[in-house]
């Protein structure tokens, strides 16, 4: 305390000077718009660099929301592409024509729970019946097959992953169109097995495997993976090892694809079975 008082006594001139100058500068900056604007400009220049850095860091924290919104936009774009695609299929249509209608709907969802280490793997997405999800809708990660919805609650859906012994999907070689049945053998999460490709078919390592659209779940031409190896297995068929395009270990945002004409197709097919 005594030191403080000594200090004040020693420097009282300087302190009074600084206080008075402070008041004067306050008057200067508030009373004159010219000085005020220059001071503000100067301070802004000082803080600008700092603020840029802060906003960079901030935008990094918002990446999650940004990627969500991009995914949403993507889904809506796909829906509109699908709309124009099916318009090309018909030569003539009127707006009220029931023949002209959209076949597939796309919406986006986030994976909230995921397993890959079991023989029957499922994952959970954060959309359910209230968001228009229903059983047998296809789930794709980006452009690649991920699974099929097997159950929905109000706000969540369970998806049977491709990495599930029960998962069956009609798949074909993109190069020549021969189709077979894709399943997982429970061994390796990077690989699945495509069977029922006849032995007279020629193909090579690296050929693309895609969906056929026969199952009425996935649209035609969704990427599954590439051929990484094959062997002859009993009878006349190949057993093709497919390297999956989807990395199930880092599944995050997925597209859910609904087929609006699935019921109609299945119903019709049922009549002739």
């Amino acid at each position, binding site marked *: 305390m005594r030191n403080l008082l000594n200090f004040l006594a020693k420097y009282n*001139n300087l302190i*009074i*000077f600084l206080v*008075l*100058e402070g*008041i004067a*500068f306050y008057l*200067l900056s508030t009373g*004159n718009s010219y000085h005020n604007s*220059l001071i503000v400009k100067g301070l802004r220049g000082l803080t600008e660099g700092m603020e840029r850095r802060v906003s960079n860091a901030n935008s990094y924290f918002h990446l999650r929301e940004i990627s969500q919104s991009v995914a949403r936009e993507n889904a809506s774009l796909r829906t509109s592409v699908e709309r124009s695609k099916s318009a090309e299929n018909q030569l003539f249509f009127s707006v009220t024509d029931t023949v002209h209608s959209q076949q597939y709907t796309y919406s986006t969802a986030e994976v909230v729970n995921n397993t890959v280490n079991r023989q029957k793997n499922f994952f959970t997405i954060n959309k359910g019946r209230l968001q228009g999800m229903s059983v047998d809708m296809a789930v794709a990660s980006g452009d690649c097959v991920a699974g099929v919805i097997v159950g929905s609650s109000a706000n969540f859906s369970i998806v049977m992953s491709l990495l599930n012994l029960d998962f069956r999907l009609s798949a074909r070689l993109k190069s020549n169109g021969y189709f077979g049945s894709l399943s997982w053998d429970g061994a390796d999460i990077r690989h699945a097995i495509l069977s029922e490709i006849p032995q007279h078919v020629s193909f090579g390592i690296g050929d693309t495997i895609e969906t056929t659209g026969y199952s009425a779940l996935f649209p035609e031409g969704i990427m599954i993976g590439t051929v990484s190896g094959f062997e002859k297995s009993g009878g006349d068929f190949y057993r093709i090892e497919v390297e999956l395009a989807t990395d199930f270990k880092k599944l995050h945002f997925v597209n859910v694809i609904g087929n609006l004409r699935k019921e109609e197709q299945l119903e019709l097919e049922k009549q002739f079975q």
Partner: protein
Amino acid sequence: MINRILRSGLLFILLFLLQVLLFNNIQFSGYVNPYVYIMFILLLPFEIPSWLLLILSFVTGLTMDLFSGTPGMHTSATVLAGFIRPYILRISSPRDGYETGSGPSMMVYGFRWFLIYASMVVFVHHLALFYLEAFRLVDFFSTMFRVILSTLFSVAFILLLEYIRKGK
């Protein structure tokens, strides 16, 4: 003591009357505006405590700001002048020091001393004032030109007033 305060008050009023009514209307080619009110700070007695000097400077500057409509500009320049005055008095002190009880007047210490003392204080004041007015360093040299020119004129008028005061 009371007498001295009264005299200072009278000087204050007189200087401001001169400044506002006469010198504020003198503008040589838009460059030069003599500020003689700073003479009040120059003529305060030697023994004045420096806190009082600072506060009187503040009041002087504030009054000038009120008249010229430039809040803070004259105040900060004048406070700076008041702060710097004791140091200038110290470096410009005559060989045998200052006599106690006297003010810094030309009558006692001579023309030369008063000229140096007044020039230094006025220069500091004008330097602060004009650069605060410009408030940027873009036209540094033209501002400096104004500072020097205005200092010359202010000092000339202050000397003139000091002569009149002396002759009284």
